[in-house]
């Protein structure tokens, strides 16, 4: 489960397919999402796109981008939201649950086994050293994703966005304030400023 690629990295729309989308069944949804999830060492999103758009042709590339954009602005794990929205579009609530169970179930079993192994053998010296090395690298990956996501803001010279970004970074990272308190101030503020700026550009 290496870090998700930033939304800006989603490939643009392909040539739209003329064939009508095929309707997947519940078991098909479960199996498809389980496969994407278990393949998802390089970010589940890439595999989800490949499975849904290229392999099964359940959605066109445009529909996929639209659905992902929606799931990105909602809170919570994006790819989990995507599975629910996607599954329910074809098979209602049962479809949403089937896709969600496929996405989260099998890797959760693996994670639980790893957690049990860690609880039992976590103090072994060799394992400790390996985990220390892996976590150094994992933090580096996270930092790289942060810079990748910042690039569009820097290119657009979005000063307001960068100031908000920095303020959130300081409040959470340095001052260690609770998330809810910070977001209750930051979300309305950022929404208000964005809305106001767009009004000015349009008007």
């Amino acid at each position, binding site marked *: 489960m290496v870090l998700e690629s930033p939304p800006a990295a989603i490939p643009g729309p392909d040539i739209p397919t003329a064939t009508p989308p095929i309707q997947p069944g519940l078991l098909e949804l479960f199996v498809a999402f389980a496969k994407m999830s278990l393949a998802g060492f390089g970010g589940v999103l890439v595999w989800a796109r490949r499975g849904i758009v290229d392999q099964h042709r359940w959605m066109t590339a445009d529909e996929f981008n639209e659905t992902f954009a929606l799931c990105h602005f909602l809170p919570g794990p994006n790819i989990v939201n995507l599975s629910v929205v996607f599954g329910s579009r074809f098979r209602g609530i049962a479809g949403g649950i089937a896709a969600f169970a496929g996405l989260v179930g099998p890797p959760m079993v693996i*994670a639980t086994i790893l957690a049990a192994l860690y609880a039992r053998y976590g103090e072994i010296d060799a394992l400790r050293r390996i985990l220390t090395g*892996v976590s150094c690298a994992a933090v580096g990956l996270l930092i790289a994703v942060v810079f990748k996501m910042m690039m569009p803001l820097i290119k657009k010279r979005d000063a307001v966005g960068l100031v908000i970004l920095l303020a959130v970074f300081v409040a959470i990272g340095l001052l260690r304030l609770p998330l809810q308190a910070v977001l209750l101030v930051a979300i309305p503020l950022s929404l208000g400023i964005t809305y106001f700026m767009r009004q000015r550009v349009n008007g």
Partner: protein
Amino acid sequence: MNSQANPISTLVWTFGLMSLFAVGGANSAIPEMHRIAVDVHHWMDEKQFADIFAISQLSPGPNVLIVTLIGYSVAGVAGALAATLAMCGPTAVLAYYVSHLLQRSRHSRWPAIIQAALVPLSIGLMGASGLILALTSDQSWIAGLITAAVAVLAFATRLNPVWMLLAGGALGFAGVI
């Protein structure tokens, strides 16, 4: 929340609430998970938190599974299940309703505005995650150097991240770090 409370209900309450505030996905919520697991409830120490993050990156599946590992360390298999469902459930229900709502008003410009407003917030949160995890993981200058090298490699190349994780593990095993 007092420490005598049933650990399962504490997990459900904590992650259920966090789910609705995790703007930009699970990685943005890492500072909050760290604050709650290490500072508030003392479920684990700094080192264990860094280990859990490393394990979560090594296993397949969505990033959100770090909560499975936290849940397991608090209350075993039941804790793992409770934490995962609590972190995914509320936002999944929200996503279901919002997507049905938006199907009817597809050309509204609000989704674009909301997204533009939330992107800087989620990047700031992920930056804070990076800082907090770097402070716990990088206990020596060579560890910091490896983090920096991976950050540059992952930023500038399309190398599969799994190789960098494995290289980090190998260096750790060799006793370099």
